[in-house]
């Protein structure tokens, strides 16, 4: 059985700013559970003007008590309290010419228990000569001697111009970005074991004690329960993800890229301070 969760939303910010915020969304005050973000591959195609990025995020998470009750901790590799860390693989494609960004994130750990795939489709609302408009604004920004689009790397003299340029863009009513988020949850628990029993020659991937464990349970009902727990979690974490993006976008509007980076630095310090490093335990334990 598979469960889905879907939601549409519109950011009151122009598409280019939203794509930039997506790359800069961690850390933010709503994502203190994200410990690290690394880019593992990136490809720019000059012909299509598309950028493809694969990133790896490490998140601290707390497994719900309900899952801990359903499954032995030995399977989950979690502490008694359910504290654990998990990797998320994220792929994104930005097409600046056509004005869309598709993203896909999936968990790399516990996929045997529950695989969660989150897809997001960001879209610049359709309008004629959009790119020309955008370049027009950019031209105006340059004429005001801002020295750069989001005012990269300059702390003082250019900040007013940047503020003005980003404000100009976002105050235009049609400068909005639509996003559709879809989360797919699929529990595979017990499936590997079933496969292993049908092909006895292949070496069993699962430790033998699990077979005894699963014998006393209906695989389907465990899968269903885990998917429902995952679905509740996905519903709960979506507003946080959205608020996190909005914080980054707000910082961008107020002070350009410099303000975003400064905000990130403070958020990161707070996270490190609260957890005492990557393996630490946090106070602000939000789920995602």
């Amino acid at each position, binding site marked *: 059985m598979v469960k889905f969760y879907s939601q549409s939303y519109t950011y009151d910010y122009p598409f280019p700013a939203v794509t930039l915020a997506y790359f800069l969304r961690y850390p933010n005050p709503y994502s203190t559970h994200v*410990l690290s973000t690394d880019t*593992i591959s990136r490809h720019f195609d000059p012909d299509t003007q598309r950028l493809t990025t694969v990133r790896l995020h490490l998140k601290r998470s707390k497994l719900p008590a309900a899952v801990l009750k359903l499954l032995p901790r030995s399977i989950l590799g979690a502490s008694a309290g359910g504290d654990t860390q998990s*990797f998320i693989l994220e792929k994104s494609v930005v097409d600046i010419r056509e004005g869309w960004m598709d993203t896909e994130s999936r968990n*790399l750990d516990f996929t045997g228990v529950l695989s969660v795939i989150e897809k997001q489709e960001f879209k610049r609302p359709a309008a004629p000569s959009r790119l020309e408009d955008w370049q027009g604004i950019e031209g105006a920004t340059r004429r005001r001697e801002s020295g750069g689009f989001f005012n990269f790397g300059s702390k003082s003299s250019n900040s007013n111009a940047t503020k003005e340029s980003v404000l100009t863009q976002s105050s235009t009513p049609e400068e909005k970005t639509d996003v559709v988020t879809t989360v797919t949850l699929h529990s595979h628990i017990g499936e590997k074991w079933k496969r292993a029993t049908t092909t006895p020659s292949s070496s069993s991937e699962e430790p033998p004690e699990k077979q005894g464990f699963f014998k006393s349970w209906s695989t389907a009902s465990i899968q269903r329960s885990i998917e429902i727990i995952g679905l509740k979690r996905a519903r709960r974490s979506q507003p946080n993800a959205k608020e996190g993006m909005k914080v980054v976008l707000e910082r961008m509007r107020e002070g350009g890229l410099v303000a975003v980076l400064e905000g990130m630095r403070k958020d990161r310090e707070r996270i490190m301070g609260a957890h005492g490093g990557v393996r630490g335990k946090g106070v602000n334990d939000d789920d995602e």
Partner: protein
Amino acid sequence: MSASLAPECNEVKERYDNCFLKWYSEKFLRGTATTDECKPLFEQYEKCLSKALKTRGIDTVLKEAREDNRENDAEHMRPARNGELYLLSN
């Protein structure tokens, strides 16, 4: 900037991230990018990171995930925008 999972790569990651953000906001978003100007810095970062991923045994997890995804994508092929297949692995 976000931290690297490997603290020893933080410095080279930050250099790359800075380069990327500048290129992305000043060239890519304007539609005037012709090449990925930060590639040399990315290669340095990648060198450090792949070593770290290997040491921590994450490289095999990643490899498996990408292979799994290829299988899943083959099973549930769906045309994405512009008729292309949306694959997680490159």
